[in-house]
C-alpha cells in the first residue's frame, strides 16, 4: 500500500453530496443557461437539455396519430380547426389584476448515462433512464409583481431491464447519483417585471406593451418568426420553435395574437399538419410538425376547443425515438399559492 492508495482509502472522508446541494447547484446552472444570450430554443424553456439517448418508439411514448393524416401545409380541415381554435381563444378568461396566469407542464426527457470513467479495457458502458418532472409557474396578470416558479421531480427509472442490468453491473455509483439529481423540489418567487423574469428572450416573457407590438397579420408574423434562425437547424424548424416560445406563457398571450400565431404556424414552409392528434395524456388536438436539418422532428399540438398549446414532442424523424415529451395545462389562480380548480 503506497501513499497514494493510503490517501484514497484513509484520507479525509468526503461528506456525501446531499441531493438538495446538487439540485441547488443544478438549478443555478440552469438559471445561468436560461439567462445566457445565445439563441433560444423551446427546449430550454423546459429546463433540462435534450440528452444523449433517445427512447425508442414503442408506442408508449410516441405521439399517436389517431384517424387523421399527416401532410404538408394546412389542409382545409386543419384550417377549419384552426379557425375554431382562434375563435375559442378569444373566449378564454383573462386574469384580472391581482390574479395569476397558471401553467403546469409535465415533462419527460430521455437521458443516456455513460459509466465514467471508462473501465480498465477502455469501454464505456451506458444505460438509459427516463426522467420526469413537473414545472409550474404563476405569472402576475399585471406587468409587475411577484412570479412563482416551482419544479417537482418525478420518478427517474430505467427504460428497460437491460438498462438496469448495465447500470447495476457497471456503475452503481453513477446510478446512485442519478437517483439523487433533481430529487428535491425547487421553488422560487421572483419580483421583477415580466420581461426580466428567468427565461426572458427575444420570443419569451413579454409584457403587455411588447405583446401589443407583435403583428397580427399572419404573413408579417411568420416573416418575423422565420427571420431568427441562429441555432442552425434551418429557418422552418426555428420558426416553429420561435412560435411556441412566443406562445410559451399560454393564456397570458392576447387572444388575437394567439390566433395570429396559429395562422402563422400554418404558413411555415414545409410544415406538416396532423389533423387529429392525441397527446400522451389523452387530449385531442391538431398538430404542427417540422423536421429540422439534423433530422429532429418537433411537433406542437393545439387544443382547438381552447386555442392553447397542450403538448410538445421532439423525436428522431428517422427512428421515431422520442427525446422529449411534455403536456401543458393552464388556468387562472387567485394567489401565488392557489391552484385553479378549472384548468384547460
Amino acid at each position, binding site marked *: 500500500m503506497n501513499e497514494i492508495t493510503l490517501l484514497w482509502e484513509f484520507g479525509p472522508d468526503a461528506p456525501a453530496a446531499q441531493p438538495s446541494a446538487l439540485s441547488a447547484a443544478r438549478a443555478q446552472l440552469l438559471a445561468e443557461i436560461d439567462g445566457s444570450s445565445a439563441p433560444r430554443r423551446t427546449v430550454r424553456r423546459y429546463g433540462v437539455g*435534450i440528452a444523449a439517448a433517445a427512447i425508442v418508439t414503442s408506442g408508449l411514448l410516441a405521439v399517436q396519430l389517431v384517424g387523421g393524416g399527416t401532410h404538408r401545409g394546412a389542409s382545409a380541415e386543419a384550417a377549419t380547426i384552426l379557425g375554431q381554435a382562434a375563435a375559442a381563444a378569444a373566449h378564454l378568461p383573462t386574469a384580472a389584476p391581482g390574479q395569476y396566469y397558471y401553467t403546469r407542464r409535465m415533462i419527460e426527457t430521455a437521458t443516456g448515462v455513460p459509466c465514467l470513467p471508462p473501465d480498465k479495457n477502455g469501454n464505456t458502458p451506458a444505460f438509459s433512464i427516463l426522467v420526469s418532472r413537473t414545472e409550474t409557474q404563476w405569472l402576475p396578470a399585471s406587468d409587475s409583481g411577484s412570479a412563482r416558479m416551482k419544479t417537482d421531480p418525478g420518478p427517474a427509472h430505467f427504460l428497460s431491464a437491460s438498462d438496469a442490468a448495465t447500470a447495476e453491473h457497471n456503475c452503481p455509483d453513477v446510478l446512485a447519483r442519478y437517483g439523487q439529481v433533481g430529487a428535491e423540489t425547487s421553488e422560487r418567487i421572483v419580483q421583477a417585471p415580466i420581461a426580466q423574469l428567468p427565461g426572458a428572450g427575444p420570443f419569451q416573457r413579454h409584457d403587455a406593451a411588447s405583446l401589443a407590438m407583435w403583428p397580427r397579420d399572419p404573413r408579417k408574423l411568420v416573416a418575423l418568426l422565420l427571420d431568427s434562425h441562429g441555432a442552425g437547424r434551418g429557418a422552418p424548424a426555428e420558426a416553429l420553435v420561435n412560435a411556441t416560445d412566443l406562445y410559451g406563457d399560454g393564456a397570458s398571450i392576447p387572444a388575437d395574437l394567439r390566433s395570429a400565431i396559429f395562422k402563422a404556424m400554418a404558413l411555415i414552409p414545409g410544415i406538416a399538419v396532423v389533423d387529429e392528434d392525441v397527446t400522451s395524456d389523452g387530449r385531442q388536438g391538431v398538430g404542427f410538425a417540422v423536421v429540422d436539418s439534423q433530422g429532429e422532428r418537433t411537433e406542437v399540438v393545439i387544443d382547438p376547443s381552447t386555442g392553447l398549446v397542450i403538448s410538445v414532442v421532439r423525436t428522431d424523424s428517422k427512428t421515431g425515438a422520442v427525446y422529449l415529451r411534455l403536456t401543458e395545462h393552464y388556468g387562472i389562480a387567485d394567489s401565488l399559492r392557489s391552484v385553479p380548480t378549472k384548468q384547460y
Partner: protein
Amino acid sequence: VTTLHPPPAPPSDDELIRRSMSEPEHFAELFDKYAGDIHRYLARRVGDAADDLVSETFLAAFRQRSSYRSVHEHARPWLYGIATNLLRRHARTEQRRYRALARSHDAGEWERFFEDEAAERLDATALRAPLAAALADLAKPDRDVLLLFAWAQLGYQEIAEALTIPVGTVRSRLNRSRRLMRTALAGHDLTIEETS
C-alpha cells in the same frame, strides 16, 4: 417499460460543449455527468464548502466554455482545473480542516481501536491523523497536483492541462509531495512502498 434497445453512443464532452455554444441547454448534461465526482473531490478537500464550490465550478465553466480547448475526449481535466482554482480562496479552510482532522483522529481513534478486533483496520485507521497532518503541511501547488492525482485520478498530462502547467512541473511537484508524504508516514507501523 420493458423494451430493450441499444443506447446510442453518447456525445463526447467536446461535442456537448460545442453544441452548447448555440444551444446552451446541452451544458446541463456535463453537470449530470461530472457534478457528483467534482463534489466528492471538493468535499474531501474543504468539507461542506463543496456545496457552493461545485455550483461555482459549473457556472464558471459555462461562462468560459468558448475558451475550452481539450486534447482529451472528456472535460474532466478542465472541470477539475476550474474547481482547483476556486479552491485558492479556501486554502486556509482546507488547511484548518486537515489540522482538525489530525487532532480528532489523534484523540479519538485509539479508544475505538480497543473495540475493534481487526488489527489491520487498527493500523490503517491510525494513519488518518498523520495523513491529514501531512496534507496540511504541503505547499498548495504541490497539494493540488497530489490530490488531482490521488483523488481526482487524473494522469500527468491531464493534470498539466487542468492546471495549465508543463508536464515536467507536474512530475516534479508530484515527486516532491509523495516524498514528503512518505516521510511523514515513515514513523508509523505500516509498510510504505517506495514509488518513483
